[in-house]
């Protein structure tokens, strides 16, 4: 045999031995050595664990997850944790002041909390990246209706979030002792949402606080006509309060689909 044939025979014998070793190792591996996370070990027996894994694998399927969300109105655990982390991160940025208003608006689009006022694109800026425009804070792209000629927005003078919550403590909102303590510390109040079966905190958008809501007012577009005649059931409001109601009704219209 030539040297080359000898080397090939030597290498081939080692590869064959390794393949046989791997085959024997796989065949002889006991079932109890299979990796199971600690959280999955509480099961009555092998059949319940297999059922548990089957259910979890099914929930990972996007189609089933969509059906679950439509039927029960709540996403799967994985998605809810992701949204919760996003909400917490956004809340931290609001409290610490880290991040510009534009970055926070970008977070609004990410969370889908509402209509995002698109950055106004000036002449010759059609090719500009919208995110870089927002980051630059170009006053000419300020689309707020309250911006004055100098480009300064009314929102620039908003109250810091802890101050807002502390001031809310003086108003009779019906909060309990625990929420009073949170307001005294400058933290938003929390409540238990029985629809979502979870706690939720009030959110502050820079001007006012509001509880998270997923309901639509189907009669919002009739608010303007009803301003003059409303009052039989609601307390009489000043002109400033009615303007606020009209503004809110107009904002609600932005979320509504076009009437067919």
């Amino acid at each position, binding site marked *: 045999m030539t040297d080359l044939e000898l080397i090939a025979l030597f290498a081939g014998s080692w590869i064959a031995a390794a393949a046989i070793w791997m085959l024997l190792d796989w065949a002889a591996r006991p079932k109890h050595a299979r990796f199971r996370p600690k959280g999955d070990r509480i099961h009555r027996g092998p059949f319940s664990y297999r059922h548990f894994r089957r259910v979890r694998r099914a929930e990972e399927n996007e*189609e089933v997850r*969509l*059906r679950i969300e*439509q*039927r*029960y*109105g*709540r996403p799967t655990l994985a998605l809810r944790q992701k949204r919760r982390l996003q909400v917490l991160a956004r809340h931290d940025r609001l409290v610490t002041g880290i991040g510009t208003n534009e970055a926070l608006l970008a977070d609004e689009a990410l969370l889908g909390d509402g209509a995002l006022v698109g950055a106004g694109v000036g002449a010759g800026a059609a090719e500009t990246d919208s995110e870089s425009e927002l980051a630059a804070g170009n006053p000419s792209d300020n689309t707020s209706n309250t911006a004055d000629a100098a480009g300064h927005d009314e929102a620039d003078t908003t109250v810091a979030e802890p101050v807002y919550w502390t001031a809310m403590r003086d*108003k*009779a*909102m*019906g*909060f*309990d002792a*625990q*929420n009073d303590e949170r307001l005294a510390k400058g933290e938003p*109040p929390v*409540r*238990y*949402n*029985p*629809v979502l*079966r979870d*706690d939720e905190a009030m959110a502050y958008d820079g001007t*006012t*606080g*509001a*509880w998270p*809501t*997923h*309901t*639509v*007012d*189907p*009669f*919002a577009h*009739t*608010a303007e006509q*009803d301003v003059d005649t*409303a*009052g039989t*059931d*609601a*307390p009489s409001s000043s002109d400033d*309060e009615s303007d*606020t*109601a009209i503004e*809110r009704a107009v904002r609600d219209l932005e979320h*509504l*689909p076009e*009437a*067919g």
Partner: protein
Amino acid sequence: MSSLSERFRSRRSSSLVVAGEVVFSVYRKRVQIGQTLRVERITCSPHREQSLNLSCSGALLETNGISASGMMLRSSRCPESVDIHVTPIESDIGPNASGAVDVLCWNSWFVDDIEHAWIGEAGIRLGGTEPIRLECNDGLGETEFGDLVVDLTIS
């Protein structure tokens, strides 16, 4: 003594027994897709604006040309009697055209133009079953369950 909302929160439940009566934080009613839910406002507190909220998973609520999974009927805007149709959802995996869904009802109120719900002494008491009478109490004032009284009729 802890408030109703604190007790709901500590028990992680939507119903409690208070003085021998069942009080809900959210009232659930099983309806069939295609049925119509009539909401009639009987009384409303003159001190604060009240609102009845409805939510449905697995179907859409349609009224006044608007379809949504959650609706808010404010006492200052909506008429005293409102018909809400339970319609199926058109989705990529096919419409859910049949079956029963749960419609959730809860009350809310407005203070300084901020909507509040499920805080303080907020709760719903069942005043009748035919039609379904929901006697709601907001989180402020006395717990008399007279801040918002509505009748629900399913047809």
